[in-house]
Protein backbone atom coordinates (compact mmCIF):
# COMPACT_ATOMS: atom_id res chain seq x y z
CA UNK A 1 0.00 0.00 0.00
CA UNK A 2 2.74 2.36 -0.95
CA UNK A 3 1.57 5.91 -1.48
CA UNK A 4 2.37 7.27 -4.94
CA UNK A 5 3.17 10.92 -5.41
CA UNK A 6 -0.07 11.60 -7.32
CA UNK A 7 -2.07 9.96 -4.53
CA UNK A 8 -0.96 12.61 -2.08
CA UNK A 9 -3.83 14.77 -0.80
CA UNK A 10 -1.91 16.96 1.60
CA UNK A 11 1.76 17.55 2.04
CA UNK A 12 3.34 19.71 4.68
CA UNK A 13 6.81 20.95 3.90
CA UNK A 14 9.17 22.42 6.46
CA UNK A 15 6.38 23.90 8.60
CA UNK A 16 7.40 26.29 11.36
CA UNK A 17 4.68 27.66 13.64
CA UNK A 18 5.81 29.97 16.40
CA UNK A 19 4.01 31.81 19.19
CA UNK A 20 5.18 35.29 20.05
CA UNK A 21 4.27 36.09 23.64
CA UNK A 22 5.69 39.01 25.63
CA UNK A 23 8.87 39.18 23.58
CA UNK A 24 9.46 35.42 23.86
CA UNK A 25 9.19 32.99 20.99
CA UNK A 26 7.73 29.56 21.60
CA UNK A 27 8.82 27.41 18.67
CA UNK A 28 5.95 24.95 18.87
CA UNK A 29 6.46 23.46 15.43
CA UNK A 30 10.00 23.44 14.04
CA UNK A 31 10.31 22.09 10.53
CA UNK A 32 7.63 19.44 10.17
CA UNK A 33 7.34 17.45 6.94
CA UNK A 34 4.31 15.22 6.51
CA UNK A 35 2.20 13.82 3.75
CA UNK A 36 -1.22 12.26 3.76
CA UNK A 37 -2.41 9.97 0.98
CA UNK A 38 -5.97 9.81 -0.33
CA UNK A 39 -8.13 7.43 1.70
CA UNK A 40 -5.32 6.98 4.20
CA UNK A 41 -5.11 7.58 7.91
CA UNK A 42 -1.99 9.18 9.29
CA UNK A 43 -1.50 8.94 13.04
CA UNK A 44 0.30 11.87 14.62
CA UNK A 45 1.54 10.79 18.03
CA UNK A 46 3.21 12.69 20.83
CA UNK A 47 2.94 13.96 24.39
CA UNK A 48 1.04 17.11 25.33
CA UNK A 49 3.07 20.06 24.13
CA UNK A 50 4.87 18.13 21.41
CA UNK A 51 3.30 20.36 18.75
CA UNK A 52 0.87 17.88 17.21
CA UNK A 53 -2.25 19.99 17.79
CA UNK A 54 -0.47 23.14 16.62
CA UNK A 55 0.53 21.29 13.44
CA UNK A 56 -3.09 20.28 12.89
CA UNK A 57 -4.42 23.76 13.58
CA UNK A 58 -1.82 25.25 11.26
CA UNK A 59 -3.34 23.28 8.39
CA UNK A 60 -6.66 25.10 8.82
CA UNK A 61 -4.89 28.25 10.00
CA UNK A 62 -6.78 28.16 13.27
CA UNK A 63 -3.80 28.90 15.49
CA UNK A 64 -4.49 31.45 18.15
CA UNK A 65 -4.25 34.98 16.80
CA UNK A 66 -2.39 37.24 16.98
CA UNK A 67 0.28 35.42 19.02
CA UNK A 68 0.60 32.36 16.79
CA UNK A 69 2.02 32.55 13.27
CA UNK A 70 3.15 30.21 10.54
CA UNK A 71 6.60 31.66 9.97
CA UNK A 72 7.86 29.26 7.32
CA UNK A 73 6.81 26.33 5.21
CA UNK A 74 4.15 25.19 2.79
CA UNK A 75 0.93 23.28 3.37
CA UNK A 76 -0.06 21.97 -0.03
CA UNK A 77 -3.61 20.66 -0.29
CA UNK A 78 -4.74 19.54 -3.74
CA UNK A 79 -2.14 21.78 -5.32
CA UNK A 80 -2.92 24.89 -3.27
CA UNK A 81 -0.59 26.24 -0.61
CA UNK A 82 -2.91 26.86 2.31
CA UNK A 83 -0.23 28.84 4.14
CA UNK A 84 -0.31 31.61 1.55
CA UNK A 85 -3.94 31.95 0.38
CA UNK A 86 -6.25 34.77 1.47
CA UNK A 87 -8.34 34.34 4.61
CA UNK A 88 -11.54 34.39 2.56
CA UNK A 89 -10.33 31.48 0.42
CA UNK A 90 -9.28 29.66 3.57
CA UNK A 91 -12.82 30.01 4.93
CA UNK A 92 -14.17 28.23 1.85
CA UNK A 93 -11.91 25.27 2.63
CA UNK A 94 -12.69 25.05 6.35
CA UNK A 95 -15.60 22.75 7.06
CA UNK A 96 -15.92 22.12 3.33
CA UNK A 97 -12.83 20.40 1.91
CA UNK A 98 -11.09 19.93 5.23
CA UNK A 99 -12.94 19.65 8.51
CA UNK A 100 -11.89 19.09 12.04
CA UNK A 101 -13.19 17.42 15.16
CA UNK A 102 -11.90 18.20 18.59
CA UNK A 103 -11.06 16.48 21.83
CA UNK A 104 -13.81 17.67 24.12
CA UNK A 105 -17.28 16.79 22.83
CA UNK A 106 -18.74 18.34 25.98
CA UNK A 107 -17.46 21.80 25.02
CA UNK A 108 -17.20 21.62 21.22
CA UNK A 109 -20.89 22.18 20.64
CA UNK A 110 -22.41 25.58 21.28
CA UNK A 111 -24.60 25.20 24.40
CA UNK A 112 -27.24 27.70 23.28
CA UNK A 113 -27.80 26.54 19.68
CA UNK A 114 -29.94 23.57 18.68
CA UNK A 115 -28.15 20.48 17.32
CA UNK A 116 -29.91 20.72 13.97
CA UNK A 117 -28.84 24.30 13.39
CA UNK A 118 -25.23 23.53 14.30
CA UNK A 119 -25.14 21.03 11.43
CA UNK A 120 -27.43 22.95 9.06
CA UNK A 121 -25.41 26.18 9.20
CA UNK A 122 -22.44 24.43 7.58
CA UNK A 123 -24.43 23.05 4.63
CA UNK A 124 -26.21 26.36 4.16
CA UNK A 125 -22.83 28.08 4.09
CA UNK A 126 -20.88 25.75 1.81
CA UNK A 127 -23.62 24.01 -0.17
CA UNK A 128 -26.06 26.91 -0.37
CA UNK A 129 -29.01 24.77 0.70
CA UNK A 130 -32.16 26.63 1.77
CA UNK A 131 -33.01 26.49 5.48
CA UNK A 132 -35.65 23.76 5.32
CA UNK A 133 -33.55 21.42 3.17
CA UNK A 134 -30.45 22.06 5.27
CA UNK A 135 -32.35 20.92 8.34
CA UNK A 136 -33.56 17.78 6.56
CA UNK A 137 -29.99 17.16 5.50
CA UNK A 138 -28.89 17.57 9.13
CA UNK A 139 -31.42 14.93 10.15
CA UNK A 140 -30.01 12.54 7.54
CA UNK A 141 -26.48 13.20 8.75
CA UNK A 142 -27.47 12.39 12.33
CA UNK A 143 -28.94 9.10 11.16
CA UNK A 144 -25.75 8.41 9.23
CA UNK A 145 -23.55 8.77 12.30
CA UNK A 146 -25.77 6.37 14.19
CA UNK A 147 -27.96 8.64 16.28
CA UNK A 148 -31.40 7.19 16.98
CA UNK A 149 -34.49 9.38 16.52
CA UNK A 150 -32.61 12.04 14.54
CA UNK A 151 -35.77 14.03 13.87
CA UNK A 152 -36.22 14.56 17.60
CA UNK A 153 -32.53 15.19 18.25
CA UNK A 154 -32.16 18.08 15.83
CA UNK A 155 -34.51 20.15 18.00
CA UNK A 156 -32.50 19.42 21.15
CA UNK A 157 -29.66 21.29 22.77
CA UNK A 158 -26.20 19.81 23.42
CA UNK A 159 -26.79 19.39 27.17
CA UNK A 160 -29.55 16.89 26.40
CA UNK A 161 -27.05 14.52 24.73
CA UNK A 162 -24.39 12.22 26.19
CA UNK A 163 -20.68 12.69 25.50
CA UNK A 164 -20.57 9.89 22.93
CA UNK A 165 -23.61 11.29 21.13
CA UNK A 166 -22.10 14.74 21.07
CA UNK A 167 -18.95 13.40 19.45
CA UNK A 168 -21.19 11.73 16.86
CA UNK A 169 -22.84 15.10 16.26
CA UNK A 170 -19.37 16.65 15.86
CA UNK A 171 -18.55 13.98 13.28
CA UNK A 172 -21.85 14.69 11.51
CA UNK A 173 -20.95 18.39 11.38
CA UNK A 174 -17.45 17.62 10.11
CA UNK A 175 -18.64 15.24 7.40
CA UNK A 176 -21.75 17.15 6.31
CA UNK A 177 -20.06 18.77 3.31
CA UNK A 178 -18.31 15.57 2.24
CA UNK A 179 -14.76 16.86 2.86
CA UNK A 180 -11.71 15.15 1.39
CA UNK A 181 -9.86 15.37 4.64
CA UNK A 182 -10.73 15.09 8.31
CA UNK A 183 -8.47 16.29 11.09
CA UNK A 184 -9.36 14.44 14.28
CA UNK A 185 -7.61 16.00 17.27
CA UNK A 186 -7.78 13.43 20.07
CA UNK A 187 -11.33 12.47 19.07
CA UNK A 188 -11.76 9.76 21.70
CA UNK A 189 -9.58 10.95 24.57
CA UNK A 190 -12.46 12.36 26.59
CA UNK A 191 -14.72 9.35 26.07
CA UNK A 192 -14.90 6.13 28.05
CA UNK A 193 -13.53 2.98 26.48
CA UNK A 194 -16.69 1.41 25.06
CA UNK A 195 -17.81 4.69 23.51
CA UNK A 196 -14.25 5.19 22.28
CA UNK A 197 -14.44 1.90 20.35
CA UNK A 198 -17.82 2.88 18.88
CA UNK A 199 -16.53 6.24 17.67
CA UNK A 200 -13.42 4.66 16.12
CA UNK A 201 -15.63 2.07 14.39
CA UNK A 202 -17.81 4.84 13.05
CA UNK A 203 -14.81 6.77 11.73
CA UNK A 204 -13.46 3.66 10.03
CA UNK A 205 -16.73 2.73 8.37
CA UNK A 206 -17.26 6.31 7.17
CA UNK A 207 -13.75 6.26 5.75
CA UNK A 208 -14.49 3.01 3.87
CA UNK A 209 -17.66 4.54 2.43
CA UNK A 210 -16.32 7.92 1.42
CA UNK A 211 -12.58 7.41 0.98
CA UNK A 212 -11.85 10.38 3.18
CA UNK A 213 -8.28 10.92 4.41
CA UNK A 214 -7.84 11.25 8.16
CA UNK A 215 -5.15 12.99 10.13
CA UNK A 216 -5.54 11.41 13.53
CA UNK A 217 -3.88 13.17 16.40
CA UNK A 218 -3.57 11.19 19.57
CA UNK A 219 -1.29 10.24 22.41
CA UNK A 220 -2.92 6.81 22.58
CA UNK A 221 -0.82 4.24 20.74
CA UNK A 222 -3.66 1.73 20.95
CA UNK A 223 -5.85 4.04 18.87
CA UNK A 224 -3.03 4.49 16.35
CA UNK A 225 -2.49 0.74 16.03
CA UNK A 226 -6.17 0.29 15.34
CA UNK A 227 -6.76 3.18 12.96
CA UNK A 228 -3.64 4.41 11.17
CA UNK A 229 -1.83 3.30 8.05
CA UNK A 230 1.21 5.48 8.69
CA UNK A 231 2.45 7.01 11.93
CA UNK A 232 4.50 10.09 12.66
CA UNK A 233 5.91 10.55 16.14
CA UNK A 234 6.37 14.15 17.27
CA UNK A 235 8.66 15.41 19.95
CA UNK A 236 9.35 19.06 20.88
CA UNK A 237 7.97 20.41 17.62
CA UNK A 238 9.68 17.95 15.29
CA UNK A 239 8.93 14.62 13.69
CA UNK A 240 11.32 12.14 15.27
CA UNK A 241 10.11 9.00 13.54
CA UNK A 242 7.86 8.27 10.58
CA UNK A 243 6.87 4.80 9.40
CA UNK A 244 4.09 2.42 8.43
CA UNK A 245 2.13 1.42 11.49
CA UNK A 246 3.27 -2.24 11.53
CA UNK A 247 6.92 -1.28 11.06
CA UNK A 248 6.82 1.26 13.83
CA UNK A 249 5.36 -1.14 16.35
CA UNK A 250 7.75 -3.96 15.34
CA UNK A 251 10.98 -2.04 14.83
CA UNK A 252 10.94 1.36 16.50
CA UNK A 253 14.20 3.20 15.78
CA UNK A 254 14.09 6.35 17.89
CA UNK A 255 14.70 5.90 21.62
CA UNK A 256 11.64 8.11 22.28
CA UNK A 257 9.38 5.81 20.26
CA UNK A 258 10.89 2.83 22.07
CA UNK A 259 10.09 4.50 25.36
CA UNK A 260 6.51 5.25 24.29
CA UNK A 261 5.91 1.67 23.21
CA UNK A 262 7.44 0.28 26.40
CA UNK A 263 5.07 2.38 28.50
CA UNK A 264 1.98 0.72 27.00
CA UNK A 265 0.66 -2.17 29.09
CA UNK A 266 0.40 -5.41 27.13
CA UNK A 267 -1.24 -8.73 27.98
CA UNK A 268 1.52 -10.62 26.15
CA UNK A 269 4.24 -8.98 28.17
CA UNK A 270 5.40 -10.21 31.58
CA UNK A 271 4.92 -7.60 34.31
CA UNK A 272 8.05 -6.05 35.74
CA UNK A 273 8.99 -7.18 39.28
CA UNK A 274 7.62 -4.01 40.89
CA UNK A 275 4.52 -4.20 38.65
CA UNK A 276 5.16 -0.65 37.45
CA UNK A 277 5.04 0.31 33.79
CA UNK A 278 8.30 1.73 32.52
CA UNK A 279 8.05 5.49 32.00
CA UNK A 280 10.24 7.91 30.09
CA UNK A 281 12.22 9.83 32.69
CA UNK A 282 12.05 13.63 32.81
CA UNK A 283 9.68 15.98 31.01
CA UNK A 284 9.32 17.58 27.60
CA UNK A 285 11.84 20.43 27.15
CA UNK A 286 10.58 24.00 27.21
CA UNK A 287 9.96 25.18 23.65
CA UNK A 288 10.98 28.67 24.76
CA UNK A 289 14.49 27.46 25.58
CA UNK A 290 15.65 24.38 23.68
CA UNK A 291 19.15 22.95 24.25
CA UNK A 292 21.59 22.78 21.35
CA UNK A 293 21.69 19.36 19.73
CA UNK A 294 18.96 16.76 20.02
CA UNK A 295 15.81 17.85 21.87
CA UNK A 296 15.49 14.43 23.51
CA UNK A 297 19.06 14.33 24.91
CA UNK A 298 18.19 14.84 28.57
CA UNK A 299 15.71 11.96 28.65
CA UNK A 300 17.48 9.58 26.30
CA UNK A 301 19.00 6.38 27.72
CA UNK A 302 21.34 6.14 24.70
CA UNK A 303 22.60 9.72 24.67
CA UNK A 304 26.20 10.36 23.60
CA UNK A 305 28.46 13.37 22.94
CA UNK A 306 27.29 14.13 19.45
CA UNK A 307 23.64 14.41 20.63
CA UNK A 308 24.59 17.34 22.84
CA UNK A 309 26.46 19.19 20.09
CA UNK A 310 24.56 18.71 16.87
CA UNK A 311 20.91 18.37 16.01
CA UNK A 312 20.26 15.10 14.15
CA UNK A 313 18.49 15.29 10.76
CA UNK A 314 15.40 13.25 9.91
CA UNK A 315 17.07 10.49 7.90
CA UNK A 316 15.62 7.64 5.90
CA UNK A 317 16.96 4.58 7.66
CA UNK A 318 15.14 1.95 5.64
CA UNK A 319 12.47 2.06 2.97
CA UNK A 320 9.56 4.24 4.15
CA UNK A 321 11.02 4.50 7.64
CA UNK A 322 12.60 7.75 8.82
CA UNK A 323 14.15 8.57 12.17
CA UNK A 324 15.78 11.64 13.70
CA UNK A 325 18.58 10.06 15.73
CA UNK A 326 22.38 9.95 15.53
CA UNK A 327 22.25 6.19 16.25
CA UNK A 328 20.72 5.67 12.85
CA UNK A 329 22.68 8.11 10.74
CA UNK A 330 25.50 6.52 8.82
Amino acid sequence: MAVQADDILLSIEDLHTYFFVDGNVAKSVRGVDLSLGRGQTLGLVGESGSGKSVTAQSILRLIQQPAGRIVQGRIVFEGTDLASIAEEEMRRIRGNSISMIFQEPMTSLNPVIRIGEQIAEVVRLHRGLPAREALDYATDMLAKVGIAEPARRIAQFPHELSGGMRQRVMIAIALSCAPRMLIADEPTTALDVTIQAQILDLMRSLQRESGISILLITHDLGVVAEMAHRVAVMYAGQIVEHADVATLFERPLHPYTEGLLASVPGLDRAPTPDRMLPAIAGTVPNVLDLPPGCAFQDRCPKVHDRCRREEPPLATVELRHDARCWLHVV
Partner: protein
Amino acid sequence: MTLYLLQRLLYLVPLLLGAVTIVFVLVHMAPGNPVDYIIGESGADKEMIARLTADMGLDRPLYIQLLRYLGQVATGNLGYSFVSNMPVLELILDRLPATLLLMASQLVFSISLGVGLGVLSARRPNSLLDNSITVFSLASFAVPVFWLGQLLILGFGYYLDWLPIQGMVDLRAGYTGFDLVLDVARHMVLPVLTLTLYNLALILRLTRGSMLEVVGQEYVKVARAKGLSENTVMIKHALRNALLPVVTVVGLEFRALIAGAVLTETVFAWPGLGRLTFDAIHARDYPLLMGMFIFISVLVAVGNLVTDLLYALLDPRIRYR
Protein backbone atom coordinates in the same frame (compact mmCIF):
# COMPACT_ATOMS: atom_id res chain seq x y z
CA MET B 1 -43.47 28.00 34.38
CA THR B 2 -46.80 29.57 35.38
CA LEU B 3 -46.38 28.01 38.81
CA TYR B 4 -42.90 29.46 39.04
CA LEU B 5 -44.21 32.90 38.15
CA LEU B 6 -46.97 32.69 40.75
CA GLN B 7 -44.45 31.58 43.34
CA ARG B 8 -42.15 34.47 42.54
CA LEU B 9 -45.04 36.96 42.73
CA LEU B 10 -46.10 35.52 46.10
CA TYR B 11 -42.57 36.02 47.44
CA LEU B 12 -43.07 39.70 46.73
CA VAL B 13 -45.46 40.04 49.69
CA PRO B 14 -43.03 39.24 52.55
CA LEU B 15 -40.28 41.02 50.65
CA LEU B 16 -42.26 44.23 50.40
CA LEU B 17 -43.44 43.97 54.00
CA GLY B 18 -39.84 43.78 55.17
CA ALA B 19 -38.70 46.58 52.89
CA VAL B 20 -41.55 48.89 53.91
CA THR B 21 -40.90 48.33 57.61
CA ILE B 22 -37.21 49.05 57.35
CA VAL B 23 -37.65 52.10 55.17
CA PHE B 24 -40.48 53.42 57.35
CA VAL B 25 -38.28 53.33 60.43
CA LEU B 26 -35.32 54.84 58.60
CA VAL B 27 -37.37 57.67 57.12
CA HIS B 28 -38.82 58.60 60.51
CA MET B 29 -35.41 58.42 62.16
CA ALA B 30 -34.01 61.00 59.77
CA PRO B 31 -33.71 64.45 61.34
CA GLY B 32 -36.34 67.07 60.52
CA ASN B 33 -40.07 66.57 60.09
CA PRO B 34 -42.80 67.68 57.74
CA VAL B 35 -44.36 70.07 60.24
CA ASP B 36 -41.26 72.25 60.27
CA TYR B 37 -41.24 72.26 56.51
CA ILE B 38 -44.88 73.31 56.20
CA ILE B 39 -44.64 76.04 58.78
CA GLY B 40 -41.34 77.20 57.35
CA GLU B 41 -39.60 80.34 58.52
CA SER B 42 -42.78 82.21 59.30
CA GLY B 43 -43.03 80.60 62.72
CA ALA B 44 -46.19 79.48 64.45
CA ASP B 45 -47.38 79.05 67.97
CA LYS B 46 -46.99 75.80 69.84
CA GLU B 47 -50.70 75.03 69.67
CA MET B 48 -50.66 75.16 65.88
CA ILE B 49 -47.62 72.86 65.71
CA ALA B 50 -49.28 70.41 68.08
CA ARG B 51 -52.47 70.39 66.03
CA LEU B 52 -50.63 69.79 62.74
CA THR B 53 -48.58 67.01 64.35
CA ALA B 54 -51.74 65.36 65.63
CA ASP B 55 -53.47 65.78 62.27
CA MET B 56 -50.67 63.90 60.56
CA GLY B 57 -50.70 61.23 63.25
CA LEU B 58 -47.10 62.01 64.08
CA ASP B 59 -47.79 62.21 67.84
CA ARG B 60 -48.40 58.47 68.08
CA PRO B 61 -45.65 55.94 68.87
CA LEU B 62 -43.74 54.86 65.77
CA TYR B 63 -45.01 51.27 65.79
CA ILE B 64 -48.63 52.46 65.85
CA GLN B 65 -47.85 54.74 62.89
CA LEU B 66 -46.26 51.81 61.08
CA LEU B 67 -49.19 49.46 61.74
CA ARG B 68 -51.69 52.08 60.64
CA TYR B 69 -49.68 52.71 57.51
CA LEU B 70 -49.41 49.01 56.68
CA GLY B 71 -53.13 48.55 57.21
CA GLN B 72 -53.80 51.44 54.89
CA VAL B 73 -51.41 50.17 52.21
CA ALA B 74 -52.99 46.71 52.42
CA THR B 75 -56.25 48.22 51.19
CA GLY B 76 -54.42 49.76 48.25
CA ASN B 77 -54.41 53.25 49.67
CA LEU B 78 -51.01 54.95 49.62
CA GLY B 79 -52.35 58.01 51.44
CA TYR B 80 -52.12 61.72 50.70
CA SER B 81 -49.08 63.90 50.29
CA PHE B 82 -48.44 66.11 53.34
CA VAL B 83 -47.36 68.93 51.09
CA SER B 84 -49.79 68.97 48.19
CA ASN B 85 -52.64 66.95 49.72
CA MET B 86 -52.91 65.01 46.47
CA PRO B 87 -53.31 61.21 46.52
CA VAL B 88 -49.80 59.69 46.47
CA LEU B 89 -50.70 57.10 43.84
CA GLU B 90 -51.98 59.82 41.54
CA LEU B 91 -48.81 61.85 41.98
CA ILE B 92 -46.66 58.83 41.15
CA LEU B 93 -48.67 57.74 38.13
CA ASP B 94 -48.67 61.31 36.90
CA ARG B 95 -44.87 61.44 36.85
CA LEU B 96 -44.27 57.85 35.76
CA PRO B 97 -44.39 58.29 31.95
CA ALA B 98 -41.66 60.94 31.95
CA THR B 99 -39.32 58.70 33.92
CA LEU B 100 -40.14 55.62 31.89
CA LEU B 101 -39.35 57.52 28.72
CA LEU B 102 -35.97 58.54 30.08
CA MET B 103 -35.12 55.13 31.52
CA ALA B 104 -36.20 53.14 28.50
CA SER B 105 -34.28 55.36 26.10
CA GLN B 106 -31.10 55.26 28.11
CA LEU B 107 -31.40 51.48 28.57
CA VAL B 108 -31.75 50.99 24.84
CA PHE B 109 -28.75 53.21 24.14
CA SER B 110 -26.47 51.95 26.88
CA ILE B 111 -27.20 48.29 26.18
CA SER B 112 -26.84 48.51 22.40
CA LEU B 113 -23.78 50.76 22.55
CA GLY B 114 -22.26 48.90 25.51
CA VAL B 115 -22.67 45.48 23.95
CA GLY B 116 -21.57 46.72 20.52
CA LEU B 117 -18.44 48.47 21.77
CA GLY B 118 -17.71 45.55 24.11
CA VAL B 119 -17.73 43.11 21.21
CA LEU B 120 -15.60 45.46 19.15
CA SER B 121 -13.17 45.76 22.05
CA ALA B 122 -12.94 42.00 22.48
CA ARG B 123 -12.25 41.34 18.82
CA ARG B 124 -8.72 42.63 19.12
CA PRO B 125 -7.83 42.81 22.80
CA ASN B 126 -5.16 45.36 23.72
CA SER B 127 -5.25 46.95 20.29
CA LEU B 128 -5.38 50.72 19.92
CA LEU B 129 -9.16 50.56 19.44
CA ASP B 130 -9.64 48.39 22.52
CA ASN B 131 -7.48 50.66 24.66
CA SER B 132 -9.26 53.80 23.45
CA ILE B 133 -12.63 52.28 24.24
CA THR B 134 -11.38 51.23 27.67
CA VAL B 135 -10.09 54.69 28.53
CA PHE B 136 -13.28 56.32 27.31
CA SER B 137 -15.52 53.94 29.26
CA LEU B 138 -13.55 54.22 32.49
CA ALA B 139 -13.56 57.99 32.23
CA SER B 140 -17.30 58.20 31.68
CA PHE B 141 -17.88 55.73 34.53
CA ALA B 142 -15.68 57.66 36.94
CA VAL B 143 -17.48 60.98 36.42
CA PRO B 144 -20.46 61.53 38.75
CA VAL B 145 -23.71 61.90 36.82
CA PHE B 146 -24.69 65.22 38.34
CA TRP B 147 -21.35 66.75 37.40
CA LEU B 148 -21.36 65.23 33.92
CA GLY B 149 -24.91 66.54 33.49
CA GLN B 150 -23.84 70.05 34.43
CA LEU B 151 -20.85 69.90 32.09
CA LEU B 152 -23.12 68.88 29.24
CA ILE B 153 -25.52 71.69 30.12
CA LEU B 154 -22.65 74.17 30.05
CA GLY B 155 -21.19 72.82 26.82
CA PHE B 156 -24.19 72.07 24.67
CA GLY B 157 -26.79 74.28 26.30
CA TYR B 158 -24.96 77.40 27.35
CA TYR B 159 -21.88 77.85 25.16
CA LEU B 160 -23.04 76.12 21.98
CA ASP B 161 -26.72 76.79 22.61
CA TRP B 162 -27.74 73.72 20.59
CA LEU B 163 -30.03 72.01 23.03
CA PRO B 164 -32.54 72.88 25.74
CA ILE B 165 -31.20 72.24 29.22
CA GLN B 166 -34.25 72.14 31.47
CA GLY B 167 -37.59 70.37 31.53
CA MET B 168 -39.28 68.12 29.06
CA VAL B 169 -41.11 70.54 26.74
CA ASP B 170 -40.85 74.15 25.74
CA LEU B 171 -43.92 75.49 27.53
CA ARG B 172 -43.93 78.86 25.78
CA ALA B 173 -43.93 77.37 22.26
CA GLY B 174 -47.07 75.32 22.86
CA TYR B 175 -46.20 72.63 20.31
CA THR B 176 -48.71 69.97 19.33
CA GLY B 177 -48.59 66.75 17.33
CA PHE B 178 -45.32 65.84 15.69
CA ASP B 179 -43.70 69.13 16.70
CA LEU B 180 -44.30 68.18 20.32
CA VAL B 181 -42.60 64.82 19.80
CA LEU B 182 -39.60 66.58 18.27
CA ASP B 183 -39.51 69.06 21.12
CA VAL B 184 -39.53 66.29 23.75
CA ALA B 185 -36.83 64.44 21.80
CA ARG B 186 -34.66 67.58 21.84
CA HIS B 187 -35.15 67.92 25.57
CA MET B 188 -34.25 64.28 26.05
CA VAL B 189 -30.85 64.39 24.37
CA LEU B 190 -28.78 65.67 27.27
CA PRO B 191 -30.34 63.67 30.14
CA VAL B 192 -30.32 60.49 28.07
CA LEU B 193 -26.72 61.12 27.06
CA THR B 194 -25.74 61.66 30.69
CA LEU B 195 -27.36 58.44 31.87
CA THR B 196 -26.12 56.46 28.88
CA LEU B 197 -22.51 57.53 29.37
CA TYR B 198 -22.72 56.47 32.99
CA ASN B 199 -24.35 53.07 32.48
CA LEU B 200 -22.51 52.30 29.26
CA ALA B 201 -19.18 51.64 30.94
CA LEU B 202 -20.36 48.77 33.13
CA ILE B 203 -22.13 47.00 30.29
CA LEU B 204 -19.20 47.56 27.95
CA ARG B 205 -16.57 46.23 30.34
CA LEU B 206 -18.72 43.24 31.23
CA THR B 207 -19.41 42.39 27.61
CA ARG B 208 -15.73 42.69 26.75
CA GLY B 209 -14.61 40.47 29.62
CA SER B 210 -17.33 37.94 29.01
CA MET B 211 -16.62 37.85 25.26
CA LEU B 212 -12.91 37.32 25.84
CA GLU B 213 -13.73 34.36 28.04
CA VAL B 214 -16.20 32.86 25.58
CA VAL B 215 -13.89 33.38 22.59
CA GLY B 216 -11.43 31.00 24.24
CA GLN B 217 -14.06 28.25 24.34
CA GLU B 218 -13.78 25.23 22.10
CA TYR B 219 -17.13 25.77 20.38
CA VAL B 220 -15.87 29.11 19.06
CA LYS B 221 -12.88 27.32 17.56
CA VAL B 222 -15.31 24.78 16.10
CA ALA B 223 -17.38 27.61 14.61
CA ARG B 224 -14.23 28.96 12.93
CA ALA B 225 -13.32 25.46 11.71
CA LYS B 226 -16.71 25.37 9.99
CA GLY B 227 -15.60 28.21 7.76
CA LEU B 228 -18.00 30.77 9.21
CA SER B 229 -17.08 34.43 8.87
CA GLU B 230 -15.61 36.21 11.85
CA ASN B 231 -18.79 38.26 12.28
CA THR B 232 -20.97 35.15 12.40
CA VAL B 233 -18.58 33.50 14.82
CA MET B 234 -18.58 36.53 17.10
CA ILE B 235 -22.27 37.39 17.05
CA LYS B 236 -24.05 34.09 16.53
CA HIS B 237 -21.73 31.78 18.44
CA ALA B 238 -19.94 33.90 21.00
CA LEU B 239 -22.20 36.82 21.89
CA ARG B 240 -25.26 34.86 22.98
CA ASN B 241 -23.16 32.91 25.42
CA ALA B 242 -21.39 36.04 26.57
CA LEU B 243 -24.62 37.94 27.29
CA LEU B 244 -25.62 35.88 30.34
CA PRO B 245 -23.46 37.67 32.90
CA VAL B 246 -24.33 41.00 31.27
CA VAL B 247 -28.04 40.36 31.74
CA THR B 248 -27.48 39.41 35.38
CA VAL B 249 -25.64 42.57 36.19
CA VAL B 250 -27.99 44.87 34.33
CA GLY B 251 -30.84 43.25 36.28
CA LEU B 252 -29.04 43.69 39.57
CA GLU B 253 -28.09 47.25 38.74
CA PHE B 254 -31.71 48.20 38.19
CA ARG B 255 -31.81 50.07 41.47
CA ALA B 256 -28.65 51.95 40.49
CA LEU B 257 -30.42 53.01 37.33
CA ILE B 258 -33.20 54.49 39.44
CA ALA B 259 -30.69 56.23 41.70
CA GLY B 260 -29.03 57.67 38.59
CA ALA B 261 -32.42 58.83 37.38
CA VAL B 262 -33.07 60.79 40.59
CA LEU B 263 -29.83 62.73 40.21
CA THR B 264 -30.20 63.25 36.48
CA GLU B 265 -33.81 64.37 36.68
CA THR B 266 -32.82 66.84 39.37
CA VAL B 267 -30.01 68.31 37.29
CA PHE B 268 -32.16 68.61 34.16
CA ALA B 269 -35.40 69.56 35.95
CA TRP B 270 -37.02 66.56 34.28
CA PRO B 271 -40.59 66.23 35.55
CA GLY B 272 -40.32 62.58 36.53
CA LEU B 273 -40.30 60.33 39.57
CA GLY B 274 -36.71 61.21 40.39
CA ARG B 275 -37.58 64.85 40.87
CA LEU B 276 -40.69 63.88 42.83
CA THR B 277 -38.57 61.75 45.16
CA PHE B 278 -35.99 64.46 45.59
CA ASP B 279 -38.69 66.99 46.52
CA ALA B 280 -40.38 64.50 48.86
CA ILE B 281 -37.11 63.89 50.72
CA HIS B 282 -36.59 67.61 51.00
CA ALA B 283 -40.04 68.19 52.50
CA ARG B 284 -40.00 65.05 54.69
CA ASP B 285 -43.26 64.24 52.93
CA TYR B 286 -43.56 60.80 54.57
CA PRO B 287 -46.57 59.42 52.69
CA LEU B 288 -45.16 60.40 49.31
CA LEU B 289 -41.70 59.14 50.22
CA MET B 290 -43.06 55.82 51.42
CA GLY B 291 -45.17 55.53 48.30
CA MET B 292 -42.09 56.11 46.17
CA PHE B 293 -40.10 53.50 48.09
CA ILE B 294 -42.82 50.91 47.67
CA PHE B 295 -43.02 51.73 44.01
CA ILE B 296 -39.24 51.44 43.54
CA SER B 297 -39.15 48.17 45.51
CA VAL B 298 -41.77 46.68 43.22
CA LEU B 299 -39.87 47.96 40.20
CA VAL B 300 -36.62 46.37 41.39
CA ALA B 301 -38.31 43.08 42.26
CA VAL B 302 -40.02 42.94 38.89
CA GLY B 303 -36.73 43.85 37.23
CA ASN B 304 -35.06 40.88 38.92
CA LEU B 305 -37.88 38.61 37.87
CA VAL B 306 -37.59 39.74 34.27
CA THR B 307 -33.83 39.09 34.48
CA ASP B 308 -34.42 35.52 35.59
CA LEU B 309 -36.90 34.97 32.80
CA LEU B 310 -34.50 36.43 30.24
CA TYR B 311 -31.91 33.99 31.49
CA ALA B 312 -34.07 31.05 30.55
CA LEU B 313 -34.65 32.62 27.17
CA LEU B 314 -30.92 32.99 26.50
CA ASP B 315 -29.71 29.72 27.94
CA PRO B 316 -31.66 26.55 27.16
CA ARG B 317 -29.96 24.78 30.07
CA ILE B 318 -31.93 26.97 32.50
CA ARG B 319 -35.52 25.92 33.07
CA TYR B 320 -37.81 27.02 35.88
CA ARG B 321 -40.49 24.94 37.43
